[in-house]
């Protein structure tokens, strides 16, 4: 269905090819998952399928990309619309009309589909995506998951044999992500759609994939069966890491498969005490109350964003703030920061608060990284060079000098992870006692997330109180010692991470689902436990 033949592509003004000599084939009806770190060319590969690369982006393409018998050289994206449905990373940015029905009909209108057929197809799409009750709603009033489903429905309205999705779940909470993915998978199974999808959080989709297209970062694409490729892949979901650790063969990709082969491991671990993920506060340090939120209520017009929220934050701790989209997580962070004034109640802070907002780039406005750093020093009356030193510390990765940020570069040209590091450095320049991070893992690959986890742990070690609002359950399990779940503006749950995460069906990390009911959260924990001498019941080491 899709064939890349010796395809190479170079962006205009770039000396290095984004993709180099790619040969691959995706047969009809397959689900191909594209995986790789940020900046390895995932989006380029996806956009090449429907001709946006090179017709829309410019640049130089060698070789051929053939979709359903049509070479994308000869046809621009608009002439391929009936063959390839494409949904970009931000579905809301791609909406052309303003109600759900009109959006679903848009592509058909362009294709001059007969009105009677159009009417029928719109009804079918509404049913397929489960959005019939939203038909006349304005698109801007929909939640993220609903928007994603509308965008997918709109892309499928012309009944294309191929669907391309670029990170369909990156902005969604776990439940909404399940929703959107379930809708897509049903289409794959029922209609025999060929699906190409890029996803950072492999754990959400890898077990459904027939084929994995792995981008190691040198412009090549390695294709193969997911189980085989992941055994040696640098990016892997926790279930695969656990499988590698336990030496399972073949490697299980889903929680269900892993749970079945994990019986011996569970028995072996049953005798071992669960080591803590973190030791916080470190021995001898007394947790110090830094922020107290008392009965805070926030309204946006008639909507109550926060409803009498009580919360205490301590030093030396990392709190993961979770909950579905629109449950008040961001509002709570902005309120603690003091930018938004609560309608009632109060926030008491001992010390300074720094906040990294969801769209971190909003904070940046100068031409170079160096200028931003200098400005940050000036703004927070820090000694010159403070921000730069912080940035170096944040981006320092042992044995990998390539990840150092070039100070002369424009902030817009940084990768997602680097930009986050820059904004974090700008905020840390003021030496805050409380650091708030709003959805920092959005668009980050496994390696950047790993590094961010290290940074967060470092902040807590130096006595700061860190709050991370996140949808990413695996990340939350790695970093947090305490989890607060918000729902409809109220605190639903507040307690130790192990307790809250393990008992929740939506927020439990994969390791907990495989090894439950005991509170195992991360692969590292299991590794530590397996390294320590196993004591049998009579107390003798084995």
């Amino acid at each position, binding site marked *: 269905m899709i064939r890349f033949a010796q395809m190479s592509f170079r962006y205009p003004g770039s000396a290095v090819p984004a993709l180099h000599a790619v040969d691959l084939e995706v047969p009809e009806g397959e689900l191909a998952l594209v995986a790789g770190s940020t900046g390895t060319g995932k989006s380029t590969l996806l956009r090449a399928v429907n001709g946006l690369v090179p017709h*829309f982006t410019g640049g130089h393409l060698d070789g051929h990309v053939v979709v359903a018998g049509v070479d994308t050289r000869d046809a621009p994206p608009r002439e391929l619309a009936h063959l390839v449905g494409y949904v970009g990373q931000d579905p809301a940015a791609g909406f052309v009309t303003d109600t759900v029905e009109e959006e679903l009909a848009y592509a058909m209108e362009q294709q001059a589909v007969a009105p009677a057929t159009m009417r029928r197809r719109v009804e079918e799409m509404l049913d397929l995506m489960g959005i019939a009750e939203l038909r006349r709603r304005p698109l801007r009033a929909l939640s993220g998951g609903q928007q994603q489903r509308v965008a997918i429905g709109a892309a499928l309205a012309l009944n294309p044999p191929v669907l391309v999705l670029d990170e369909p779940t990156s902005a969604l909470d776990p439940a909404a992500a399940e929703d959107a993915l379930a809708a897509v998978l049903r289409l794959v199974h029922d209609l025999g759609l060929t699906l190409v999808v890029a996803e950072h959080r492999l754990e959400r989709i890898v077990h459904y994939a027939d084929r994995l297209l792995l981008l190691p970062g040198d412009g090549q694409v390695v294709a193969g069966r997911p189980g085989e490729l992941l055994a040696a892949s640098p990016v892997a979901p926790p279930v695969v890491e656990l499988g590698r650790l336990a030496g399972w063969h073949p490697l299980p990709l889903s929680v269900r498969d892993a749970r079945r082969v994990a019986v011996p491991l569970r028995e072996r671990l049953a005798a071992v005490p669960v080591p803590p993920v973190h030791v916080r506060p470190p021995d001898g340090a007394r947790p110090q109350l830094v922020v107290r939120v008392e009965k805070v209520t926030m309204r946006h017009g008639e909507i109550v964003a926060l409803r009498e929220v009580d919360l205490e934050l301590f030093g030396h701790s990392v709190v993961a703030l979770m909950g579905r989209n629109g449950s008040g997580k961001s509002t709570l962070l902005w309120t603690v920061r003091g930018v938004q004034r609560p309608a009632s109640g109060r926030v008491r802070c001992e010390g300074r608060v720094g*906040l990294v907002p969801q769209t971190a780039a909003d904070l940046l406005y100068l031409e170079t990284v160096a200028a931003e750093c200098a400005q940050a020093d000036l703004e927070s009356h820090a000694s010159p060079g403070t921000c730069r030193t912080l940035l170096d510390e944040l981006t320092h990765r042992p044995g990998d000098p390539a990840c150092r940020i070039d100070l002369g570069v424009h902030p817009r040209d940084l990768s997602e992870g680097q930009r986050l590091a820059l904004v974090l450095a700008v905020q840390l320049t003021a030496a805050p006692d409380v650091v708030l991070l709003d959805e920092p893992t959005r668009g980050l690959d496994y390696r950047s997330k790993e590094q961010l986890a290290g940074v967060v742990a470092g902040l807590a070690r130096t006595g700061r109180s860190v709050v991370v609002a996140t949808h990413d359950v695996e990340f939350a399990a790695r970093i947090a010692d305490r989890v607060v779940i918000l729902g409809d503006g109220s605190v639903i749950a507040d307690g130790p991470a192990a307790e809250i995460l393990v008992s929740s069906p939506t927020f439990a990390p994969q390791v907990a689902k495989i090894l439950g009911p005991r509170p195992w959260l991360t692969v590292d924990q299991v590794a530590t436990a397996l390294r320590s001498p196993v004591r049998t019941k009579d107390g003798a080491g084995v």
Partner: protein
Amino acid sequence: MMTDTRPPRLSRSLHPMAWWLWALGLATAASRTSDPLLLGLVIAVCACVVAARRGDAPWALAFRYYLIAGALVVVLRVLARIVFGTGPGTVVLLDLPQVPLPDWTSGVTLLGPVSADAVLGGLYDGLRLATMLVCVGAANALANPKRLLKSMPPALHEVATAVVVALSVLPQLAESVLRVRRARELRGPHRGRRALLRSVVVPVLEDALDRSLLLAASMDARGYGRSGDRTAAGRWVASGLMLLGLVGVAAGVYGVLDASTPTVLRGPALLVGVLAAVGGFTLAGRAVRRTTYQPDRWRPAELVTVLAGIVPSATLVLLSARGMPALVPDVSPPSWPTAPLLPVAVILVALLPAVLAPPPLRSTPPARNPAATLRGATT
């Protein structure tokens, strides 16, 4: 037990053009009179129809802003009359001292005696303007402006798309400004207004650029601007004809309005222009291969609505051409305005759509009442 078993009228959205013609009719009627009673009646009619037949979409809620804007127009108009001097009138309300101005401002006076005549004149004038504004606001609240663009002839499809996209960018831009300004507060104090402006403008513009690129990619991927079987030559002919037509129409209209232009530029130019424009539209329209989802159609209710707008406008235009004195009440000396019977009657005709137009579609369907369904099933 006897109950009214007639089902409520089927809701659907009226053709947007019908609402606009109705509203423009009312506005024309309002432009022909300065009788505050008649103008008040027009506003009341607009408000009634809007209250009865508007949907629950965001643009439908903007009607009140037009009312506020109208009130502002009236106040400004009266204030202007007072500030720039009213000159001697028949009844002086307030004797303010006149501010002496240099000679070169001849004809303009500042303050001075305030006469009831002038204040009343300003009031009537402002009220007329405000009424026309409210009429446009009513059209805006009743018909989705974007749907109006959708019912444009196919030749204007590309222009209409550009306008639609521009319209949807505005709220996004406002959102983005708010977000960036909030983020701005996270960084410490900054020096100077220019730095502040820059720190907001740069991220907002970057955001807008990114968004428009994403939108363009999405439109491209969904088949916007497919050339189909249109040839370059055909496109040139169509564009040329349209351009010629527009120039012709402009020249012709100018000729008709200005009596001093030579006759060649009047009727003939207008005719040639119209013909060329129609030809260009047809050619361009034929080449566009696209269809419309659920196109709005003209049905009896649309005709009734348009008629309800035409009747008052035609009648008032006719009456004012004949010089009906009651349409322009005397302000010097001030006299009580009368509400002549015929204009009142025809303006009330415009109230008909409040009942005769179908009720609008709601974006969220009302919850099913299980009791009602049950009753319907058993009777």
